[in-house]
């Protein structure tokens, strides 16, 4: 750690809370989001969606709609050149895994969830498009559906797909769990239920497509994955180099814009009409149709020794995939790997299953399966501590993983684990206890830790590329196909380039997220962009620097190691300087490139057998600890969060302000998950398709989150950074549940922890009341 501190002092731009270029654009609304875009002659698109969760399409006639004045085209499944899109491995790595999840672009013969797309319309105005959707003659015959994973897996359940309702299953078996449980001083059993939630970013899915003057189908949209251009090309049956995706700065993503959203529809409509087309989902459509976070049932038997050491975890997970596979098998894999928590446990058995139902599909969302498990394993640990009379920080210190430990799946932890320090600091940050305002208002505290992988599964062979080059005046251009979801992804790349090449941030133009014009860098998902694109820019900038300094060394007759780049000058150790434009002219004259294209390959590995515990699954993990203080009104069940502290070891903070923002924002999303958010679905029908029924935290619902940024100096990212996009969303629900038990003695095991559920747990309501 001393090493990290001394390096930080030497850094000029990295490690400083510099203002982000995109923030300057955003405060004056100069940022053109996907929907802030219009082209001459542009059509407006709308989607016909199924009102039923399970039905056969018995009639689908479009002639009347297509004949309406102002309607350019109406499309159904038979009009789609290839109506199947692959959804299991988005991004630039392909041909891995046995999953090959697919879905139809437009429904064929049957629909499997409410909101499933059936037909597309493009018309001169949005009103006309919507009127044409209403004029499509469609009839359904409803069929029996399944609406819970338990029902889906019961014998004789109606199959959602011909392959059966069990979509994926993973197992872990390490040590003798039965024996360890039998010998444990304490065994705690718990069943936990987590709910369906929505990413609920403020910018709905949106984009505009046109056929550019070179004939390339160009789609400008809000996406976390520009590599979906390949999927669009497959759907359109055109060569992949005839589709270009321009990713805009996103109005939020959180995993919800990882899968294909509007791009295939837009590509189809632009191709069929030859005109520019715009599609913007309404909020209702977004909440109805977009894939969500998996609801889980988690059953745990946790055995501990009298010392507090966890000796066994027997775990059974059951998740609801909804009607299509999307990324469910991988989400479940994350759950399986993290199920026993960031702790040393000698005996672990995990049986994890995910089933198809006729509910809304579920897929990626911030936390990606490593989140639901936190609620269970941290609730269990807290209960063990209570049984043993142990302090919550102490039991986590006793059990925390350490470098060199092996996870139940066989992966060795290779970097520092700061868990005890994080737990201590988060707990201490709550300060002196808040006084109770009234006898019936009880105050309590809870702690919860987590670990979240960053970077993709090692057998996806992840890579990212970047281009860095100087203009003749010494200004710098960075090109990287990295979508910026709002976390400061692009700005961090600028900081890294500025650090290495000695130029001011104001002298850098950064171009991101264009599948034709920026080197591909993979998805902005899996907390991987700082790690992957950051490393790509770092490597590229270092190679460019070496290239330039070789020329400078011959000009100055100095050794390369005696030269530095600083404020657009070459500075020699003896004090001599050379202006950068002079060096660049000399490079041009000598035929030495002033730019460089570099690729960073993540450490890769072969697929592992989880059950056999055979090895590495993820590159590395980010650890965290959150502490919450709550008050519970024991007459009403209302819970208020009084104080909240969230500590994460980020390895190194490239921009401490952005890191704090990720921690605070992630923690508040996690509080929403813990306390209020739920997509309510009854027999496959979504009852919460507006922001007045799907509630996310407002400014008045949550306290200030104290972000504690710990820099161990160990991580696989640039300057030893770790990923921090997803980790902070994990612990809040468990921290709140633990605090509520501390305050009231009641253990809440079902999310969200609404006032009604607390009131029930306190015995204030009887069943049916």
């Amino acid at each position, binding site marked *: 750690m001393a090493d990290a501190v001394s390096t930080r002092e030497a850094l000029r731009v990295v490690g400083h*809370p510099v*203002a*982000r270029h*995109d*923030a*300057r*654009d*955003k*405060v*004056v*609304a100069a*940022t*053109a*989001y996907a*929907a*802030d875009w*219009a082209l001459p002659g542009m059509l407006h698109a709308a989607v016909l969606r199924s009102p039923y969760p399970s039905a056969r399409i018995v009639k689908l006639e479009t002639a009347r709609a297509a004949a309406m004045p102002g309607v350019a085209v109406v499309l159904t499944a038979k009009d789609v050149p290839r109506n199947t899109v692959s959804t299991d491995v988005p991004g630039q790595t392909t041909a891995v895994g046995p999953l090959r999840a697919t879905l139809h672009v437009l429904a064929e013969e049957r629909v499997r969830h409410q909101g499933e797309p059936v037909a597309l319309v493009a018309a001169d105005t949005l009103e006309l498009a919507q009127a044409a959707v209403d004029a499509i003659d469609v009839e359904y015959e409803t069929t029996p559906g399944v609406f819970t994973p338990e029902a889906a897996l019961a014998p004789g359940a109606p199959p959602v797909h011909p392959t059966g309702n069990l979509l994926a299953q993973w197992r872990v078996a390490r040590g003798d769990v039965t024996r360890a449980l039998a010998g444990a001083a304490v065994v705690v059993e718990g069943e936990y239920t987590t709910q369906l939630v929505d990413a*609920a*970013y*403020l*910018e*709905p899915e949106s984009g505009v497509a046109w056929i550019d003057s070179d004939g390339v189908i160009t789609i400008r949209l809000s996406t976390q994955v520009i590599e979906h251009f390949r999927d669009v090309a497959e759907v359109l049956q055109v060569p992949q180099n005839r589709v270009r995706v321009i990713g805009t*700065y*996103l*109005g*939020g993503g*959180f995993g919800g814009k990882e899968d294909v959203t509007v791009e295939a529809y837009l590509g189809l409509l632009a191709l069929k009409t030859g005109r520019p087309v715009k599609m*913007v989902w*309404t*909020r209702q459509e977004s909440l109805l149709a977009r894939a969500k976070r998996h609801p889980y049932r988690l059953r745990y038997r946790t055995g501990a020794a009298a010392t507090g050491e966890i000796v066994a975890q027997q775990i059974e997970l059951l998740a609801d995939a909804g009607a299509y596979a999307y990324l469910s098998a991988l989400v479940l894999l994350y759950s399986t790997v993290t199920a026993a928590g960031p702790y040393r446990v000698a005996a672990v058995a995990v049986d994890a299953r995910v089933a198809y139902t006729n509910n809304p599909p579920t897929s990626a969302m911030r936390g990606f399966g490593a989140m639901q498990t936190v609620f269970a394993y941290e609730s269990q640990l807290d209960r063990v501590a209570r049984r043993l009379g142990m302090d919550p920080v102490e039991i986590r210190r006793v059990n925390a993983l350490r470098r060199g430990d092996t996870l139940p799946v066989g992966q060795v932890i290779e970097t520092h684990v700061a868990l005890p320090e994080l737990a201590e600091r988060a707990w201490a940050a709550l300060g002196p206890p808040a006084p109770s305002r009234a006898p019936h208002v009880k105050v309590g505290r809870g702690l919860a830790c987590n670990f979240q992988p960053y970077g993709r599964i090692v057998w996806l062979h992840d890579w990212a590329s970047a281009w860095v080059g100087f203009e003749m005046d010494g200004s710098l251009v960075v090109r990287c196909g990295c979508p910026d*979801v*709002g*976390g*400061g992804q692009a700005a961090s790349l600028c900081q890294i380039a500025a650090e290495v090449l000695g130029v001011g941030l104001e002298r850098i133009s950064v171009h991101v997220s264009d599948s034709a014009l920026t080197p591909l860098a993979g998805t902005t998902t899996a907390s991987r962009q700082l790690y992957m694109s950051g490393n790509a820019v770092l490597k590229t900038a270092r190679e460019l620097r070496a290239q330039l300094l070789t020329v400078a060394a011959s000009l100055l007759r100095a050794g390369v190691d005696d030269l530095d780049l600083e404020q657009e000058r070459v500075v020699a150790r003896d004090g001599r300087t050379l202006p950068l434009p002079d060096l660049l002219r000399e490079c041009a004259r000598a035929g030495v490139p002033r730019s460089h294209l570099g690729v960073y390959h993540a450490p890769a590995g072969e697929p592992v057998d989880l059950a056999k515990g055979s090895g590495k699954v993820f590159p590395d993990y980010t650890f965290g600890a959150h502490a919450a203080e709550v008050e519970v009104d024991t007459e009403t069940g209302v819970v208020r969060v009084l104080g909240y502290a969230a500590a994460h070891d980020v390895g190194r903070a490239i921009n401490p*302000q*952005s890191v*704090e*923002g990720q921690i*605070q*924002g*992630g*923690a*508040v*999303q996690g509080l929403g998950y813990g306390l209020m958010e739920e997509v309510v679905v009854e027999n496959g029908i979504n009852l919460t398709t*507006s*922001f*007045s029924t799907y509630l*996310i935290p*407002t*400014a*008045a619902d*949550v306290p*200030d*989150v104290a*972000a504690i940024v710990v820099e161990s100096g160990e991580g696989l990212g640039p300057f030893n950074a770790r990923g921090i996009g997803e980790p902070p969303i994990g612990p809040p629900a468990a921290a709140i549940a633990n605090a509520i038990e501390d305050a009231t003695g009641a253990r809440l095991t079902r999310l969200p922890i609404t006032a009604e559920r607390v009131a029930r747990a306190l015995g204030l309501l009887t069943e049916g009341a």
Partner: protein
Amino acid sequence: MIARLVLNGRAREVEVRPNQTLLEMLRDTLGVFDVKEGCDEGVCGVCTVLLDGRPASSCLVLAAALRGRAVTTLRGIERDGGLHPLQEAFVRHGAVQCGFCTPGMLLTVLALLEREPRPDRPAIRAALEGNLCRCTGYAKIVDAVEAYVRAEGGRDG
């Protein structure tokens, strides 16, 4: 129908449909994209404009019903042709992540400060209740407003 309004200080007359909202008129007819669309039911706050100086969800206002009222969007708050100091404070204090809520947030804060020049943190949070943010957890937005209030207070006296 004709909608009459004063948009960022300029009198305008705009041909609109009877059911066209102010939000639709601004974005679809006038190309005023500094007003965002998030929920179309007056909950999320990203379409906030100032209507005669008070925050309003432009998705809930019929354009034809404006009858000459003053509509201020983010573009209308520039000071001396540069950034408003509140905008500077948002940049400096990391109050902006994805930025989709930012135009509405800024306008709501300015309206708050007109009514209440020295709000404390709870008052700032209460005023922002109608402007959702999914990225920041709100803390840095409140930090930025507080810092701006402090700096302006210093300037006043």
